[in-house]
């Protein structure tokens, strides 16, 4: 841009007419005045002043710089003035006060070459945080000031200002406002004047304001102001039109507005119109002349009543009897820019005049959606602030600064909690951190950092403040129109920084400094994490050139490529096809977790996601595990609970006794440890219980059909509940007094406390299931009778109640022997249960461990578990075995019982033989190695099978499979008898509580489908998919660390529950570990979190506008489903 062709500002022809912006006219005025030095700091609406100088400086041989801030700019300009050069510096209103320190002393010393300060005002805060009126500074600091009303006047005033400054030896402030700066009109040129530099003349007495000199200078200012007033009077910037006793005096931009309003309303000749561009010192003599004969005066000036008050004071001093109207009389507000209709109304009301012509019939304003400015597509600030918000989260406080990145204030980035002024981003973050100890982040751009961020950072370092400072280095001052950032050098193919921000930051004493490329989201987030975890001040510099600027500088194309959304993956729920979509509505917190998880687990970026996560495919109940874990990570526990409740009939139970196949499928198991899924379920269920969130499920309309469910264990309960939900009348029969089956009578209370079990059962029965206790199949309950009584179907779930005997010889006086089931049932009924002093438990499953730990609780002094294979081969859960050991249970492996004697159980040692069908090596007895386990009681836990005694009384035979199990249709649970269904341990299945429940639900849906004659509904839990690859995974790993039972020796060994419950913090941490392996339909991260304007929604689908997309590709990492991909080149 710099080496343009011939610039219209440089036409050196007298009388030439050129259409210029007000700001350009100022530059032309300075050129006509022979300016030799120009500088400034860009800021709307002043920026075109510096930008135009930048354009023409070299051609005119002018020394120009974009100074790093306004104070420096003014000092530079003053220095040039001291050296005898006409100099100018430009800034916006805010900058003038930033330069207040030098500004207040320059009038004392006085410039040599004319010094003009352009300070552009911004009434109505169009692009500023305030609309301060700089005019009030003029009398305070002795600054002659001019306020132009048109571009032509801006030119003329600038030229005059140099002369005024030199003659009065005061700096002159030109104060245009937005309306003038950004209006374009034809101006007439005079000839350009060559620049002159007189040189610095040493004269310390006049140039060093030590107190003695300063006092003398102060006196001299009076004389200088007198010169200034005289020159103002002769300047021609006070003009009078007309000769009425009714007058309108306008100043600044309102002069033009007033003029046009008077002309257009035909009031022009009927009032005296005074335009005043001289703000300070007021040309009093000329003003008195102008006001001669005026009886009523309306003052039209925007913002403060500066002139109005000045004129009142003048009138009082000179004894004029003029009625002065304006803000004081309520005709004008003291805020904002004036509109023409406001001015006309004030003239009509104030001066009692009536405009000609009809009132304009204007349209009414309409409610139109706002169109706020947004960061451009491909803006590196979006990537940086997205990463920032994702890492630092909701609790952190964010302090912004002045620049494009201020746009992070709005949705969806929300990275500005407060904002003050240039450089305050760091200071605010530091201050709030010091006083509250809260986590704070300060954000500013490269130019702002150099402007005033450096001292702010140094101050925070000095005070050892705990905060994170982020510098968004886009290598240009973009917001104000792409001015050069300090230290930037333009290369043929790009930009390079000569002043290293990182080096500056380090030299300020910051230890934790990193420079990252925000387009690399993963690395950027990791750098933010390190910054977050570091002590004291840590700095992250996000370096990536503004693409718009780079393209303009290098002529490269703005576009890097183009991305598109794969609609087959976008918002796709892998469970929807089987009717298992969760039904949760989308939320920002949840989406944020999903996205965070994707970016953090970088391995997911390259890996194709499966439609369902492996954990979900292994869940017998078909829970969307990544979904409810996501809700936990997002802190939305109610949503998580709803998701669990929808699929788990007995959440309080399952979260305690599930065998957790999901954790075995967890991909974390390959590298570290599985996510503790079931403990997270426990956390949510406890939360729901604590806050009384237990939701009720409303059954469908009663269909009148009766169904009998036999056996109130997990399968029976689940079936009964789900049948009831579908509108059936269900009677649940059980031989025991209470419902629960194995859960109540098999599992000890320290593992499955009774209160939560009761709550689960109560909730299910409350749906309308009728429970009949004491009904034992084959004794006082018969299937034929039920069918005769009109039950449409029978669901059998009587479990496996018969223990397998210990095949050993018993001496006649052998010690007592009982089976685990009988022993546990007796113990769980609550009465006394006979327990020996020394007990040996035979077996290696959970029942063996349960029996052993129960024996400990029932007073046994020594409990031994004898198992015939190795410890690794024990089917009991690892953490259960560990807990048993911590309670003093001895585990003796490779022992096969041989003979029950009076003094204990004689066992034979075994050694591993060839593998059997289960893959474990078959134990081979070593006959000559015998060991006696001294004991008074043997408890056998060698497995159970169905109690078949009821079959004898039944008139039909159900088809059976191996080991006497009842054969069923795996989809519906239907047996060989059309009206009899079965599930749970009496059928071929993995004998776990969760799978029994799943079988119950499956049968409920199966019965429903058969009775209604429809297809089996898709909503039933899917059968676990066993993938070969999963089987190879290392499943013999630690379960989630956080669930390890307390090994605390002080823990009492009684019936109270043994489990460690996660704290909220632990739960959220643990849930955040989920890698979200499956696709999710509840996401709109590209719009709701990232917010690139290239995205749009049509008919519910998300698309990328190829015209707007510039191909930065950051969104690719943002999409949890991996649905965004680079478009193929055309």
């Amino acid at each position, binding site marked *: 841009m710099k080496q343009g062709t011939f610039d219209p500002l440089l036409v050196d022809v007298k009388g030439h007419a050129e259409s210029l912006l007000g700001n350009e006219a100022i530059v032309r005025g300075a050129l006509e005045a022979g300016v030799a030095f120009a500088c400034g700091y860009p800021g709307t609406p002043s920026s075109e002043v510096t930008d135009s100088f930048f354009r023409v400086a070299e051609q005119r041989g002018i020394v120009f710089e974009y100074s790093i801030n306004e104070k420096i700019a003014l000092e530079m300009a003053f220095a040039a003035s001291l050296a005898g050069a006409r100099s100018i510096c430009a800034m916006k209103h805010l900058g003038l006060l930033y330069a207040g320190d030098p500004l207040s002393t320059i009038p004392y010393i006085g410039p040599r070459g004319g010094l003009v300060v352009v300070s552009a005002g911004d009434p109505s805060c169009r692009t500023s945080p305030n609309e301060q009126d700089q005019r009030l500074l003029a009398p305070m600091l002795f600054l002659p000031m001019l306020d132009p009303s048109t571009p032509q006047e801006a030119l003329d005033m600038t030229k005059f200002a140099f002369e005024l400054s030199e003659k009065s030896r005061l700096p002159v402030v030109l104060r245009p406002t937005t309306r003038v700066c950004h209006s374009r009109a034809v101006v007439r040129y005079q000839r350009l004047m060559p620049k002159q530099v007189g040189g610095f003349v040493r004269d310390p007495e006049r140039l060093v304001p030590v107190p003695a000199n300063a006092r003398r200078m102060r006196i001299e200012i009076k004389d200088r102001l007198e010169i200034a007033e005289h020159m103002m009077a002769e300047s021609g910037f006070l003009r009078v039109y007309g000769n009425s006793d009714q007058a309108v005096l306008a100043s600044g931009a309102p002069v033009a507005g007033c003029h046009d309003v008077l002309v257009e309303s035909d009031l022009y000749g009927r009032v005296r119109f005074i335009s005043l561009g001289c703000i300070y010192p007021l040309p009093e003599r000329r003003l008195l002349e102008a006001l001669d004969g005026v009886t009523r005066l309306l003052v039209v000036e925007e913002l403060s009543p500066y002139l109005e008050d000045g004129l009142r004071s003048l009138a009082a001093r000179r004894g004029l009897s003029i009625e002065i109207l304006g803000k004081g009389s309520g005709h004008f507000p003291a805020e904002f820019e004036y509109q023409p209709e406001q001015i006309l109304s004030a003239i009509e009301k104030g001066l009692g005049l009536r405009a000609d012509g009809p009132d304009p019939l204007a349209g009414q304003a309409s409610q139109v959606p706002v*169109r*706020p400015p947004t960061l451009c597509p491909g803006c590196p600030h979006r990537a940086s602030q997205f990463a920032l918000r994702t890492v630092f989260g909701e609790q952190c406080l964010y302090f912004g600064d002045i620049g494009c990145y201020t746009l992070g204030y709005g949705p969806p980035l929300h990275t500005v909690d407060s904002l003050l002024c240039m450089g305050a981003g760091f200071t605010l973050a530091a201050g709030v951190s010091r006083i509250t100890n809260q986590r704070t982040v300060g954000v500013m751009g490269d130019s702002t950092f150099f402007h005033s961020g450096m001292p702010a950072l140094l101050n925070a370092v000095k005070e050892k403040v705990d905060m994170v400072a982020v510098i968004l280095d886009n290598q240009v001052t973009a917001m104000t129109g792409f001015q050069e950032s300090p230290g930037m050098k333009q290369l043929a193919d790009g930009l390079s920084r000569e002043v290293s921000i990182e080096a500056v930051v380090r030299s300020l004493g910051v230890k934790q400094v990193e420079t990252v490329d925000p387009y690399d989201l993963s690395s950027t987030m990791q750098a933010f994490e390190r910054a977050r975890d570091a002590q004291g001040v840590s700095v992250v510099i996000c370096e990536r050139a503004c693409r718009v600027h780079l393209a303009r500088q290098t002529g490269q194309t703005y576009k890097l490529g183009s991305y598109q959304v794969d609609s087959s993956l976008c918002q796709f729920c892998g469970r929807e096809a089987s009717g298992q979509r969760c039904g949760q509505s989308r939320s920002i917190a949840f989406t944020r977790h999903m996205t965070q998880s994707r970016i953090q687990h970088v391995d997911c970026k390259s890996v194709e996601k499966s439609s369902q996560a492996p954990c979900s495919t292994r869940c017998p109940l078909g829970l969307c595990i990544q979904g409810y874990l996501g809700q936990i990570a997002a802190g939305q526990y109610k949503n998580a609970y709803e998701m669990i409740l929808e699929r788990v009939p007995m959440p309080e139970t399952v979260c305690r006794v599930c065998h957790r196949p999901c954790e075995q499928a967890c991909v974390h198991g390959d590298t570290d440890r599985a996510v503790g899924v079931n403990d997270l379920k426990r956390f949510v269920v406890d939360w729901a219980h604590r806050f009384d969130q237990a939701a009720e499920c409303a059954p469908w309309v009663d269909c009148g059909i009766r169904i009998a469910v036999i056996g109130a264990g997990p399968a029976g309960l689940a079936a009964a509940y789900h049948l009831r939900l579908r509108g059936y009348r269900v009677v649940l029969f059980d031989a025991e007094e209470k419902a629960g089956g194995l859960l109540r009578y098999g599992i000890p209370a320290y593992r499955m406390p009774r209160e939560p079990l009761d709550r689960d059962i109560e909730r299910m029965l409350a749906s309308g299931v009728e429970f009949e206790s004491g009904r034992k199949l084959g004794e006082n309950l018969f299937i034929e009778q039920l069918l005769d009584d009109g039950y449409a179907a029978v669901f059998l779930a009587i479990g496996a109640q018969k223990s397998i005997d210990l095949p050993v010889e018993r001496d006649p006086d052998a010690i007592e022997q009982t089976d685990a089931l009988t022993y546990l049932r007796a113990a769980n009924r609550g009465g006394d249960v006979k327990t020996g002093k020394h007990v040996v438990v035979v077996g290696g499953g959970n029942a063996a461990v349960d029996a052993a730990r129960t024996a400990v609780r029932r007073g046994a002094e020594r409990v031994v578990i004898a198992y015939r294979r190795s410890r690794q081969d024990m089917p009991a859960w690892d953490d259960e075995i560990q807990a048993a050991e911590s309670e003093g249970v001895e585990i003796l492996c490779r022992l096969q019982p041989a003979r029950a004697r009076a003094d204990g159980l004689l066992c034979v040692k075994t050694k591993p033989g060839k593998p059997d069908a289960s893959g474990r090596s078959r134990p081979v007895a070593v006959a000559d190695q015998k060991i006696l386990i001294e004991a008074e009681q043997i408890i056998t836990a060698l497995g159970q099978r169905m109690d078949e005694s009821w079959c004898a009384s039944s008139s039909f035979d159900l088809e059976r499979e191996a080991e006497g199990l009842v054969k069923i249709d795996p989809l519906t649970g239907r047996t060989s008898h059309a009206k009899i269904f079965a599930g749970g341990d009496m059928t071929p299945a993995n004998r776990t509580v969760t799978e029994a429940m799943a079988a119950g639900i499956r049968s409920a849906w199966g019965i429903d489908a058969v009775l209604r004659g429809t297809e089996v509904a898709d909503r039933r839990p899917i059968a676990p998919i066993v993938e070969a690859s999963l089987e190879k995974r290392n499943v013999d790993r630690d379960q989630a660390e956080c669930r390890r039972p307390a090994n605390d020796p002080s823990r009492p060994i009684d019936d109270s529950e043994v489990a460690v419950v996660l704290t909220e913090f632990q739960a959220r941490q643990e849930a955040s570990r989920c890698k979200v392996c499956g696709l999710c339909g509840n996401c709109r991260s590209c719009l709701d979190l990232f917010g690139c304007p290239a995205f749009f929604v049509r008919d519910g689908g998300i698309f990328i506008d190829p015209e707007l997309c510039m191909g930065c590709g950051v969104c690719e990492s943002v999409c949890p489903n991996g649905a965004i991909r680079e478009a193929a080149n055309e």
Partner: protein
Amino acid sequence: MNERLKILIVGVGGQGALTVAKFLGEAAILEGLEVMVGQLHGMSQRGGSVECSVLIGPGKSSFIGDGQADIVLGLEPMEVLRALPKMSPQSRVIINRGVIMPFSLALQGLPYPPIASITEQVQEITPYVFEVDGPVLVRRIGVSRVLNVLMVGALTGLGMLPFDRNVLWKVIEKKSPERFKEANLQALGMGIEAVASKKPAIAVVMESKEATC
């Protein structure tokens, strides 16, 4: 010319509203007319609303007061709605049919209001509404950047400017970047035709209602 012709140009940052204003200003100067251009762009570069004024004829300010716009040139339909207070029953309003979705709507998942409803709202104030099917015409030219010049053409086609098409032709020829020159000149012609020829398929001209004032 004694009266000032007040033209309000509304659009979205990046559409070239400022360039439209600049071209009109240049043309006026070539014809020796007084002209003021107000281009209070604010933060418009970042996709916000833009409003420019071009006032041809004697005068000093670049303000257009309520009900004072003689012509509203809408580069984007929704932005035309924002300018309703500037319109009067005499105003001529040209609306480009090509919409730019405000991101605030996209975020909320809300639809863009139908253009027919926008036109209706404008017609409640003035019967002189001209729709220009910008996207279609621009596609015919094949360069998306020419939309603004197309709209300058439509404005010229109204026949209210105090200079003829040749003046604008000269300005655009002189001020266009070389690579857009040809397309811009083509767009100017198409724009003029779109409004002046009143071809219903391209420009729907509604003059059935009588002006009320």
